[in-house]
């Protein structure tokens, strides 16, 4: 029997992997994928809580509504983000974050 905790643990692992990737990776595209992974972890958590939060035998749909919003927002974020990354690539011929060092101090 798969319980709420199983879902939560998997989601937490996803979140941790994503966070570690954001911190450790240097390629912006990889970082971006890791960020998406963190959002997925949050979505999984939301759906799991929703499924196990029964109201009159039915799941609580508020959390699932948020999941749809999150997916939409993530799509918008990717669209804008990739555009900026492409612009950066055009300017630098590189998507390595260690080259982004003009602003310091």
């Amino acid at each position, binding site marked *: 029997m798969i319980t709420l905790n199983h879902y939560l643990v998997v989601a937490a692992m996803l979140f941790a992997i994503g966070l570690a990737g954001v911190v450790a990776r240097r390629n912006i595209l990889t970082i971006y994928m890791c960020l998406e992974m*963190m959002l997925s972890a949050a979505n999984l958590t939301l759906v799991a809580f929703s499924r196990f939060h029964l109201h009159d035998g039915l799941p609580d749909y508020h959390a699932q509504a948020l999941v749809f919003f999150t997916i939409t927002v993530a799509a918008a974020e990717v669209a*804008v983000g990739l555009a*900026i990354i492409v*612009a950066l690539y055009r300017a630098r011929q590189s998507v390595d974050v260690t080259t982004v060092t003009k602003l310091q101090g």
Partner: protein
Amino acid sequence: MSAHNIEIALAVAAVALLGLDAFVPTLKRDIIPKLSIGLVGLALLAMFFAKGDTPAYLASYYRIDSIAMFYKVFALVATLAALIIAREADPVIAHFTGTEGPSTRIAEFYILPLIVCVGLMWMASAQDLISVFVPLELVTVTFYVLVAFARRSAVSLEAGVKYLILGALSTGILVYGIAWIYGATGSMTFAGIAKAVGAASTSKSALIVGAALLLAGLGFKVAAAPFHVWVPDVYQGAPTPVTAFLSVGSKAGAFIVLTRAVQALTATGSQISGEVQTTLLWSGVITILFGSLAAITQTQIKRLLGYSSISHAGFILLALAAGDSARFGISSEGVVAFYLATYLPMTMLGFLLLAVLRSQGVAEELSQLQGLSKRSPGMAFALAVAFASLAGLPLTAGFIGKMLVFLAAVDKGWYGAVGLAVVGAAAGFYYYFRPILAAYSAGKPEDTALRWSLPAKATAAVLVLAIVTLGVYPKALQSALKQNIVLTSAGK
């Protein structure tokens, strides 16, 4: 007209303007900026006649109380100021986007702020975490575009990428935090959370995980330590009007959400109010100290204002942590709103002057300000007022804000925290006075007189007046805020 209709109308108008820009190629360059400013002005006007009723289908997501009204007006004023600054910065933006000719346009630069404004206004009324999340992301994603807008400028692009990554990171953390809070309390609405935090059946550990993630996610947006690292780079790199809008508008939006979240999490009987309070307190103190001490060595004014914005965020966090003070008769949300209201004119004035100076070839370096009092006495005077107020000189707006924060903290008996905050404020006197000193010292003989356009001059005059008025007659604002407190506590 109800307030939410104004927001919807503004969103529709923004989309219509985008369409106008896309499908009418013969449009003159300055039509869209003017339309945009006009629309915001109209919305501001309509706001004063708006009714506070909310339709039933929105009731659990959205409520119009007076504090929401305050933040809506605040968002509109900030947008208006940002658009005016944008017009002053137009030549610089055009240079970095390759749209210098008269037949070209940079219409999005004037339309996207409207969309941000709608997000900020909606956020002010949000009553549940979904209706917090969506406008917050609307604002953040729009700012990704705005920060990186000057795409031929290496620094703007770089700032854009940094803001993009850290913004997306904070979004991830925020949603995960929302998920855990939902998991712990079984509710998405602030009212439901406030009820559940005190219940014995609520798991304290799940609540702490959720609250910590939520506070971290919002901490990114308000630039609270230790999530402030992106601020100096992004503020320096972004186009000046965007920096201004980011530091005032986006920050205020995040703070209204933070206010409501903290109110819900520390509601009467909450299991975690102590933890939340301590976190906010020390995050606030560290934020103040970091912002103030790191600013001391800065010579780049935009960057300096970035650090200044960090330190001001710290003061607001302190006010949030301190909560209401019966002895001094001030409420936490009132102080936060008051502080932001004082922060708006002084920050906007600073950035307005930077934009005007930059468009005439004066770079944002301290040394470039020398001789400003000769080149334009008015600008030097406005600069002195703005920075004196940022420093918190008595009889300016900045002093009253800081004083209220200190009083609230003293009432809690947090003398150590107050002492550290005072150190931060004292350091502020050093670095805020350097630009004033530079502006009034002798310049080079070849310096020419500087000009500023009538709108810029008028805006500066209004902002100076606002700073002085709030400094010597804060009662007007407090009376307006007083009503809020009554209304919200009735609705709680």
